[in-house]
């Protein structure tokens, strides 16, 4: 049996077909969940963020115009929900500020849902400022081009390149520490 495309599922969901929406959700929930895990470092926060993202996606589903991939459109929403999430959690922290290392955040990677390799990677990412972390996430895990990243995050492609380049400097140290 042929699998329905995103657009077909969206059209059905917009007509109130719950099953179509759930199929669409299941298709992307893993990506969004792990996006949340890497961006927040905590399983509970990742779950909350995932729920917020999908609620937001559903509410805005009618505005999706098939321009670009659905995944790209969804990750743009996820990015903005993630920023809102951070602002709620840490209102005093800017997007370019280096986060304070929280013992809670570091230990969160010990969650039962996280393997050892994932733990190192998530821990390293938690020490990047949100703006750089978003770039690393979208580039390495989202596999988006710089132009797509620029469109999703509302910055220029050159800024995206500079941010990723800057993030690598910090990641180098963090990875070295992890492997030491």
């Amino acid at each position, binding site marked *: 049996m042929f699998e329905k495309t995103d657009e077909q599922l969206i059209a059905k969901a917009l007509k109130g077909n719950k099953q179509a929406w*759930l199929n669409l959700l299941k298709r992307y929930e893993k990506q969004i969940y792990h996006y949340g895990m890497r961006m927040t470092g905590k399983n509970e926060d990742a779950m909350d963020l995932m729920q917020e993202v999908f609620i937001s996606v559903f509410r805005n589903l009618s505005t999706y115009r098939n321009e670009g991939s659905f995944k790209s459109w969804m990750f743009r929403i996820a990015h903005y929900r993630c920023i809102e999430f951070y602002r709620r959690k840490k209102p005093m922290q800017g997007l370019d500020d280096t986060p304070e290392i929280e013992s809670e955040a570091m230990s969160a990677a010990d969650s039962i849902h996280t393997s050892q*390799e*994932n733990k190192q990677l998530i821990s390293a990412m938690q020490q990047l400022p949100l703006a750089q972390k978003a770039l690393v996430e979208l580039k390495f895990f989202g596999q988006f081009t710089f132009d797509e990243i620029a469109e999703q995050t509302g910055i220029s492609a050159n800024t995206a390149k500079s941010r990723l380049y800057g993030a*690598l400097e910090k990641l180098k140290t963090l*990875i070295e520490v992890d492997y030491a």
Partner: protein
Amino acid sequence: MPKHESQSGGAQPDELRISQSELSHEQLFGLWVDQQLNDQQRHEFEQRCLENEPFAEKIQTFNMFSMQSEHYQSDEVPSWDRVSTFDTPEKVKWWQWQGLPTLSFATSMLAIVMVLTGLQVQTNDGAVTISFTGKQSERKIDNLVNDRLEEFQKTQQLALTNYTQTIQQQQMDTSTQLTQYLLGASRKERREDFAELIKYVNEQRSDDQLFYVRQLNQLQKDIYAEPDLIGSGNINE
């Protein structure tokens, strides 16, 4: 990890114009990551990797992190309430109909216009009268005023008559009461005066009797005290 294939045909025309020396580390890095290096840029990239250690380290970090990210294990999502995201808007109730405010506004405007234009709708037998300016005929108003005045006059006359009768009755009652009081009071006074007189007379008589008793006693005493004198006729008093 990006594949380093030569893409001379796919490179952007403006990028081709950029000379080697003009490309910054970030730009070259960006082209490499997005696999958009042409032959010349690719050569420049390899050159920098050999000659520029910080640049080479960043590329190495990129590759390392890229490898790690490939080994990232996407575990299953813990169970969660997926249905809660199916947030269908509730059907709008008839009283929440969006046109209601417009309709109420329109009817309000209609009412204002009707008042301003002085709408008059009159049917006699059907008894439907809608009037906003109240332009009734002068005669009608006069009749109405006269009727009212007449009615008012009658009421006032009746009230005045009643008031007069009440006052008269009240005055008569008061006069009667006063007369009775005066008569009663004078009788009582006379009775008291007579009683006082009789008392006085009785007291006088009592005093006289007492006086006579004393006189008689004195006489008797005198008689018994000097019997000789009685014969001689020298009895005093």
